Structures are given as structure tokens and as C-alpha cells.
């Protein structure tokens, strides 16, 4: 029963991974941009929430909401003010620019907040758990995070499938020049895509920050996990990221259970590399993105 419990924790953890991965997949789908600062931006959001919480007496919920909104704005400005200039040039420039951004964010956060671990306190919720059977129990908080992840992913998929703007996202993803001929301003669409991606990763970063401690150096790890979830899920499939996230989460928790705490992440990487070797298109391969 221990193993089932551990696997269950892994599934729930996968929800958080998927939430980090969603924005990465969205941005890649719409504009073929791989944002190497994606994880750092999630951590930045946690620090923004922390800063708001410390500066104003507004409580965790409103501070987090404000941080998500701020990150939405930062995403739009970042895309239109910087990243749009690197798109459609050669493939290397967006990678270099976003890598540089990652370094800037990490060191900027160290300067501002120090390299120490921080925590976001959400009160009793963090430790309360719900008992499923005599031997099975899951924490309320991981369960809530998982549900939030599923809801966000479902909402994003609905937005993409059912709204005019979502259609414009998919059209741009298919053929950006033809989209331009439909009256779609790609630069604006790219800006919105990045804004949505950063709002979601902000939520992920904040949920992570409540769950554990966080520090400025964690962004790259979040990026790597998100990336593994995206590739395993099948590039371009939003629901796939949830499956990829769950596979990664279960691999990590089971790995840690089997080989000791230090090996959990390692086992996650190995499972990822195995999937890359034998099923490089992922579990939910779609030819079409976003």
C-alpha cells in the first residue's frame, strides 16, 4: 500500500509539473519559441507574490492573484518589446536571448531577495490531508493543486477550441503568414500567448512556493521538468502535458521510494530519456500544434 500511496503522490505532483509545462507548450505551439527563462519566470512570480504579501496587508490569495496579473502584463511587454524581434530570424537568437533572460532573472532575484530559501504561507491547508481508505491518504493541498492544473488545462483547451481568439492562435500556429492575410496581427497574438503562458507559469510558481520552500536558483529545474513533461506528452498537445507531467511525477516519487531521496529526480530523467529513445514523439503525438 505504501507504493500505491507514493504513486498517488506522484500523480498529484504531476499536476504541478503540467502546470509549469502548459505555458512552455503554448508558446512553442503558437510561435515555435522555446523560452529557456520559463522556469525562472515562474519562480519570479513567487517572489512577486512574496513581495506583495510583505509590502501590503492583502493576504496570500490576493497577493497571488495580483502576481498572476502582473506576470500576464510582463509576458505581453516582454514578447512585444524584446522577443518578437528575435522571431523569424535564425533559430539561435531566441534561445540565446531567453537563456540570457534566465541568467538575469536568477541573479536579479539573488540581488533583491538574497539566495536564501523563502516560503509562502497558506496556513492550515498545507498540511491537512484527506483519508481515502484505511491506508491511503492524500494531502488536501496537492489534491487542490492537481485539480487547479486540470481546470487550467481544460480552460486553455476550451479557449483554443471555442473562441475567436483561440482560433486565431491556432491559425497563427499553422501558418503565420496566412494568418496575417486573415487580418490577424501576429505580433499581438504572440504577445497574448506569452502573457497567458506567464500567467499560468506564475500560478504554478506560486503553488510550488506554498508547497515547499523556494529560492532564485530553482528556475532551471522547473524548466527541465516542464520540458520533460512537454516532450513525453507529445509536443503540441496541451492535454499531453498533463500525462507527461503525471508520468514524470510518478517516476520521481517511485524512484525516490525505491532508491532513496537523492535518486528520485534522476529516475525521472532516465524515464524521460527512455521515452525520447523509444517514443520520441511522445504519448500524444499530434502533427498539429497548440
Amino acid at each position, binding site marked *: 500500500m505504501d507504493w500505491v500511496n507514493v504513486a498517488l503522490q506522484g500523480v498529484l505532483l504531476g499536476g504541478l509539473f503540467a502546470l509549469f509545462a502548459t505555458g512552455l507548450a503554448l508558446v512553442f505551439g503558437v510561435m515555435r519559441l522555446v523560452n529557456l527563462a520559463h522556469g525562472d519566470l515562474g519562480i519570479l512570480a513567487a517572489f512577486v507574490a512574496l513581495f506583495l504579501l510583505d509590502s501590503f496587508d492583502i493576504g496570500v490569495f490576493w497577493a497571488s492573484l495580483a502576481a498572476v496579473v502582473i506576470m500576464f502584463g510582463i509576458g505581453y511587454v516582454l514578447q512585444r518589446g524584446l522577443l518578437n524581434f528575435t522571431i523569424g530570424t535564425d533559430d539561435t537568437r531566441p534561445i540565446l536571448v531567453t537563456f540570457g533572460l534566465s541568467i538575469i532573472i536568477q541573479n536579479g532575484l539573488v540581488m533583491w531577495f538574497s539566495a536564501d530559501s523563502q516560503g509562502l504561507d497558506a496556513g492550515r491547508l498545507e498540511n491537512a490531508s484527506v483519508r481515502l481508505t484505511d491506508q491511503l491518504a492524500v494531502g488536501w493541498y496537492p489534491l487542490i493543486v492537481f485539480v487547479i492544473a486540470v481546470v487550467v488545462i481544460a480552460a486553455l483547451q476550451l479557449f483554443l477550441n471555442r473562441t*475567436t481568439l483561440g482560433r486565431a492562435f*491556432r491559425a497563427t500556429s499553422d501558418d503565420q503568414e496566412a494568418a496575417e492575410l*486573415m*487580418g*490577424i496581427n501576429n505580433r499581438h497574438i504572440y504577445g497574448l500567448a506569452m502573457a497567458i503562458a506567464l500567467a499560468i507559469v506564475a500560478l504554478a510558481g506560486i503553488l510550488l512556493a506554498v508547497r515547499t520552500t523556494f529560492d532564485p536558483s530553482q528556475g532551471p529545474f522547473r524548466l527541465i521538468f516542464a520540458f520533460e513533461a512537454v516532450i513525453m506528452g507529445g509536443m503540441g498537445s496541451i492535454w499531453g502535458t498533463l500525462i507527461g507531467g503525471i508520468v514524470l511525477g510518478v517516476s520521481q516519487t517511485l524512484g525516490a521510494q525505491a532508491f532513496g531521496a537523492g535518486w528520485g529526480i534522476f529516475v525521472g530523467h532516465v524515464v524521460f530519456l527512455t521515452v525520447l529513445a523509444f517514443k520520441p514523439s511522445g504519448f500524444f503525438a499530434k502533427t*498539429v500544434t497548440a
Partner: protein
Amino acid sequence: MSILELKDVDVFYGDFQALFSVSFTVQEGQTFAFIGANGGGKSTLLRTLAGLLKPHSGEVLFQGEPINDVPAHSRVGMGIALVPEGRRVFPSLTVNENLLIGAYGGRKGEWNVESVLELFPLLQPLMKRQASSLSGGEQQALAIGRALMSNPHLLLLDEVSLGLAPVVIKRIYEAMGHLVQKGTTILVVEQDVQHVLTVADHVACFLEGRISLEGKPGDLSSEQITAAYFGM
């Protein structure tokens, strides 16, 4: 009145000059055809009119207004629509979604999903299919329908008959006839001279980036056209 006027337009791809001092005027309601061999500059011209390429020098006037600096996506709202070469339907979107995205610019007019389906009834049973699964002719009908959804004043058609079966070409040219009756101004680019001369009321021939011949189809002899086409 003139809907479109070009004055000494030069267009480059990088260092390569594709159009040399191109000038012409299109009247409202006209069907204006551009013919010429591959590489003559016809597609370049349409891409420039749609805003995908910027003239290096010269002026493009639409309804009397200079539009050199208007980006492609804003031209749709002004009433210019291009059916690009190779159709370029959105493969992952359904036929219905492809049509709806055509109306993204939000221009009001008589074209909507119903009227497009009236023009191209063959699309009716395909509405829920992904555009990538359509045949070439179906995709071409979709591409034209999608462009019409933006209710254009000026419709630019680039090689709409390329690679299609003769029956389909016939159907598309019939549809073009309907559009003309409704008063849409059409600029059509073709390599195939025969078909286009049946619908066009004005023809210009492109050779190596320059207009080598221009006039009404009835006034031009086939020798003149051959000479302008091949540069002999």
C-alpha cells in the same frame, strides 16, 4: 473611379529586384488579369498589394489613399483580401473554422458562412473535416471562400487554377463570374492565359519584373500576347 493605383513600384527580395517601376490603375468593378511566365513577378505583385512585401520605392494607392506603410493584417480591414498561391488553408482547423477565421477582420457585408456555402456547395458536407484532409480543388474553394468571408472590395487571386482538374477550374471561374456580378473588383494572376482571358476585362503581361503589355483582351492579338509572354 480607380480602386487601386500603382506608381513606379520597385520591390526587392533582399538584393534581388523582383519588380521594376510597375505602374497601373485598376477601376472599381474591373476584373484585371496578370499573365506571364513563372518568375515574372506576378506573385510578388500580389504579395506586395496584400502587404506581405514592402515596396522599396514608388507608391501604392488604395481608394486614393497611400498604403505603403499599412501592414498586411490591417489591409484586410480596409477590404483587400489575397487568396495566396498554394491555397494555404489552415491544416489543423476544420473547414468551418477556416471560414470563420476569414471573418476575423470583422468587416460587414453580404458574405457569411451561408452565402459562401451557396457559392461553393461542395464545402457543405465537409464543414467538420480538418482542412488538411481536403482535396486540392476543395482546398482552393475553401481558400477563396475564406477570403470572401472578409467581405473584400478588392480580391487578389494567385494562381487559383494551378494543379486542379479542368472541371474544378471551370467551377472556380464560374464562381468568379458571380463575384464580378456582385461588383467585387478582382485581380487575378495566372500562367494559363486561355481561361483568364474569358473572364478578364483588362490584361497586363509581366516579363522579368516589368509590365510588357497591357490592354483589353479584345484589343490584343495572340501574337502580341505570345511576344509579351516570352519576351520574343
